């Protein structure tokens, strides 16, 4: 994509398998190392920004178990005030309180897993598992925006060599763009589909399709530019960083029209 050249941060792998960098290439290696660290930080900040955008949905989701906990606890107080309280009932409520507290904890843990800085090396992973890990969080986000989110995951896909957190970051970026794209539609027509498939070339494709009105030519031309955004509070880095991430995975990030309406963004990754 044009317009991104000055932003592209070189993401070369460190010297291969235990080989010492030559003395003359040491400086270059350090510069690359520095670049890599900077890039890691930018990605981390971008990931936090994406997660920040999702905070409203997460807050709403945590509020549900909190409501149940508060309500059960208050009802227990009332029951215990009775002259002959039914202890079995109180015990039922306490059990519910405990399980709702665990539920709230799980929501927070899911979010924390995403926020955690991750420098894990790329490892062979199943793309579907990676998507399913995010499913609840994505459904929460979709629900808050009154969007119907469907997952259509193909069976029997080969594994891909990925940094899980980075690919999940890309997926969240694409999802958030899709949610934005359908916001203008009446609630019943807002639909987003996350799909996986195997391409003819044997690559693995993960795509996010929306039922929105499509992109204007201006947006289509500039969407990969750093700091270009159509969102009120967007950083304008989501797609830029996503495409950098996918490039370092030797994959491709692109888009095509979605039928009958909207846009489909896809990521293709070489299979292991």
């Amino acid at each position, binding site marked *: 994509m044009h317009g991104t050249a000055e932003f592209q941060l070189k993401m070369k792998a460190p010297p291969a398998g235990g080989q010492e960098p030559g003395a003359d290439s040491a400086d270059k290696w350090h510069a690359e190392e520095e670049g890599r660290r900077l890039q890691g930080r930018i990605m981390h900040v971008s990931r936090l920004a994406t997660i920040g955008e999702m905070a409203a949905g997460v807050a709403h989701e945590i509020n*549900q178990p*909190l409501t149940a906990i508060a*309500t*059960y606890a*208050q*009802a227990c107080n009332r*029951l215990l005030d009775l002259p002959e309280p039914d202890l079995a009932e109180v015990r039922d409520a306490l059990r519910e309180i405990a399980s709702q507290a665990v*539920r709230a904890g799980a929501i927070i843990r899911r979010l924390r897993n995403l926020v955690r800085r991750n420098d894990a090396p790329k490892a062979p992973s199943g793309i579907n598992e990676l998507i399913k890990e995010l499913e609840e969080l994505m459904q929460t986000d979709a629900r808050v925006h009154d969007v119907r989110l469907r997952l259509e995951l193909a069976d029997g896909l080969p594994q891909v060599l990925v940094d899980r957190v980075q690919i999940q970051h890309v997926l969240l970026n694409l999802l958030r763009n899709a949610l934005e794209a359908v916001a203008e539609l009446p609630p019943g027509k807002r639909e987003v589909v996350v799909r996986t498939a195997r391409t003819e070339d044997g690559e693995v494709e993960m795509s996010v399709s929306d039922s929105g009105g499509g992109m204007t030519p201006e947006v289509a031309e500039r969407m990969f530019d750093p700091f270009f955004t159509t969102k009120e509070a967007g950083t304008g880095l989501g797609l830029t960083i996503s495409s950098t991430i996918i490039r370092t995975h030797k994959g491709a990030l692109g888009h095509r029209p979605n039928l009958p309406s909207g846009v489909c963004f896809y990521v293709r990754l070489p299979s292991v």
Partner: protein
Amino acid sequence: MKDETPTVFIVDDDEAVRNSLRFLLKSVGLAATTLPSAREFLDSYRQDQPGCLVLDVRMPGMSGLELQQQLNLRGAIIPVIFITGHGDIPMAVEAMQHGAFDFLQKPFRDQDLIDRIQRALAADKKNRAALTERDRIRSRLDSLTPREREVLTLMMRGKPNKVMAAELGLSQRTVEIHRARVMEKTDASSLAQLVRMVMDVEPAHTA
């Protein structure tokens, strides 16, 4: 007249929230029915069931606000108490503008919810009593003959018997008989009460 105990309907897509609310209401002796979606409530709702509705604003499929609109379209009188998560205040304002009885932010103090439910049930009872009274008046008015109807219309305008007799081409004596029949059939104790009753069910009469 039916004397059904009022039911508190709880519509929320979150099972834990629904169950906890039913548990709380049971602890204070209120009968509650829980439903997981606006659609299921709408499909099972009967106008003649007294009660109130505790409704989550934000739900997948038909939202709480859409359910409220559907109920308004059907002329339902069931009072609606909205419960909302944080940040849903604009939605709550919209709900109030469309006639919601009240709203509460989740999580809530149990007493706040119970107080509002009690008030909503009292309001529902009052509304239903008023509706029943109006139905009664309407059926009494329906029992009038066309001639008695004409006399009633002129009575509403405060015409003396003599003027009525002239306008209707009847004898004063006949007008008096019709007039007595109107008072008897409507069970009105005075002309003032009769006027109030008619205006209550047929506001067009004031024009």
